[in-house]
């Protein structure tokens, strides 16, 4: 089989991406759980997990750069490697946002939540769905899935607006809640940014398949 070593290397890159996907999902879930249960230790664990993702990113990038230099890929191979590098960059930013949520949780402090969380966990769940879907589209080079991901982004925006409205009303009624409300707004913002990164991955998938970039949202 020609280029066996090269294909093997590409598969290894894919495996690493899969590992990062798992880690990022854990970080998103964990950061929201820590928020819900006021678990500062869990938040600290999430912060440490970001280092794992950073290490993966460095590894994947170095491997990809070396493959470009040594294998001189063209056409589909080249687009694959470039897309891989873009995808890991997006995943690393997602991990940063999840880490950010954990850090905000710590800053909120050892106090009770000003309201029970409903929409924030919903946003988190959606963002994880979008992450799974966009990476499935990337793995399977499926443009249709990529387009679907971009449609789901509208829902995230709507959720975020609702959360902001709600929290602003609460803090207007009770100014003492304004500090936590602001932090919660930041958290919603981070979750929306995570979803946005998924749409970036979807656009990267379209580039991978068609060779041309297309703005989808």
């Amino acid at each position: 089989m020609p280029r066996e070593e090269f294909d093997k290397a590409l598969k290894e890159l894919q495996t690493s991406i899969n590992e990062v996907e798992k880690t990022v999902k854990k970080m998103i879930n964990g950061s929201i759980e820590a928020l819900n249960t006021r678990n500062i230790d869990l938040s600290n664990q999430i912060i440490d997990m970001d280092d794992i993702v950073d290490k993966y990113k460095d590894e994947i990038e170095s491997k990809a750069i070396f493959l470009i230099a040594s294998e001189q890929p063209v056409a589909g191979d080249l687009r694959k490697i470039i897309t891989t590098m873009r995808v890991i960059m997006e995943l690393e930013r997602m991990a940063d946002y999840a880490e950010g949520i954990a850090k905000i949780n710590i800053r909120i402090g050892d106090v009770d939540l000003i309201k029970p969380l409903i929409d924030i966990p919903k946003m988190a769940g959606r963002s994880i769905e979008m992450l799974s879907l966009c990476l499935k589209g990337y793995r399977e080079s499926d443009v249709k899935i990529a387009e679907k991901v971009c449609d789901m982004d509208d829902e995230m925006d709507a959720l975020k607006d609702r959360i902001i409205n709600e929290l602003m009303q609460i803090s207007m009624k009770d100014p003492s809640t304004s500090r936590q409300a602001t932090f919660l707004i930041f958290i919603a913002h981070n979750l929306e940014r995570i979803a946005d990164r998924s749409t970036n991955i979807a656009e990267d998938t379209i580039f991978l398949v068609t060779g041309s970039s297309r703005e989808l949202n």
Partner: protein
Amino acid sequence: MNNEQNQPKDILKVKNLSFYYGTFQALKDISLDIEANKVTALIGPSGCGKSTLLRCFNRMNDLFSNAKVEGQIIFDDLDIYSQSIDPVLIRSKIGMVFQKPNPFPKSIYDNVAFGLRINGFAGNYDEEIERALVQSALWDEVKDRLKDNAFSLSGGQQQRLCIARALAIRPDVILLDEPTSALDPIATVKIEDLVNVLKKDYTIIIVTHNMQQAARVSDKTAFLLSGEDRCGVLIEYDYTQTMFSNPKIKETEDYITGRFS
């Protein structure tokens, strides 16, 4: 207004060209247009007919007594294969540089002068020879030793000498048949840089095995392929940038990514 100037002009038009060595068909129904002042690369696996196609452009295949051509190659509004055209005339307008550098066993000066002498040039030899050597980026290295034997030059220099020899008679088109496959990497790069400069004044068609070279050096690329019948057909012909980032045909993609078995 200026659109006409920017309109790419095709200097060579291949129309339904089929080529036979006796009863064996080497090329089938090839049609493509070569743009003037551009570099066109012909790529494909061994035996696909790319060198045969190249040699059709200057009728070098005529040297084989059983060569037969169907179809046309239009150059300057004339079919170069029509009965009334003498191949000798074609070759002074369409020059060729070969895979292995083949300077004559004469001095550097006499090598470059050879084409001028053969074509009965009556002007200033020294001027033309200097011009040709300057254009092939060899002048500075040989200007003090024009009387030296051509074989005293390195491989890369010899190849540039062969290019100068071809340039001396001011052809319109230059055909390069794997010009760097016998050279080391440094000499290769020098010749690739040279090709980039030469295309301003000449049209260049280059056959190459080296995918990266085709991508680096050419503006358009034609991919030829032959099946079990060993008959070459044109699979894809497009701008190089498109061909190498997003080819339209699967065989092209398989070939340029090295996944042909």
